[in-house]
């Protein structure tokens, strides 16, 4: 019940295309869903996050779509660029103080020219 399932494991998208990464969870106590971006040799960094009171959040080219009834959320990267090539982790967290992040398994995204 604590798992967050993430797909696909790897993704290749052409420059300018839309990259879509999907996550699903079971634990209804989760109410905060961040996405972390990790470049090779670096630690993860928060990219964008959403709470379940909204169905979509957009920051620049990055959008999270959230479906509370299906317990699914996804990251969309519009106009994907080679600099977006990285590993993306979805995560989930409950609502009490400093509860640990439950990470998805990660998606390695490669943007090709």
């Amino acid at each position, binding site marked *: 019940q604590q798992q967050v399932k993430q797909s696909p494991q790897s993704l290749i998208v052409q420059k300018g295309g839309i990259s879509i990464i999907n996550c699903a969870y079971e634990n209804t106590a989760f109410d*905060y869903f961040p996405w972390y971006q990790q470049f090779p*040799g*670096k630690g993860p960094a928060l990219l964008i996050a959403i709470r379940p009171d909204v169905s979509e959040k957009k920051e620049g080219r990055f959008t999270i779509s959230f479906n509370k009834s299906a317990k699914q959320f996804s990251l969309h990267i519009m106009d994907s660029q080679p600099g977006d090539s990285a590993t993306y982790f979805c995560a989930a967290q409950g*609502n009490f103080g400093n509860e640990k992040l439950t990470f*998805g398994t990660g998606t390695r995204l490669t943007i090709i020219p």
Partner: protein
Amino acid sequence: DAMVIQNPRYQVTQFGKPVTLSCSQTLNHNVMYWYQQKSSQAPKLLFHYYDKDFNNEADTPDNFQSRRPNTSFCFLDIRSPGLGDAAMYLCATSTIGKQETQYFGPGTRLLVL
């Protein structure tokens, strides 16, 4: 710039030889975390500190210990490294609270020979 610093970036040790990894932060955050990340996997939480209050994950091997002598520094001690402990070790920090952003350092890559 405020940041999370990890030293060394690469560490080679011998099977069974104790090793210490260090983390320092200039963010003045109360909470510090240690994660283990193996190739193509999500970060796995080992333990964390709320100030000096130590919290161990149930499945963290006894071989792993941690010390936090002050707010800025935290150490990960691996008492008898095995081949299976070869991984990237990530330090992260956050403020105390609900769903606070975690800020990751660049990691230390540990190789066990």
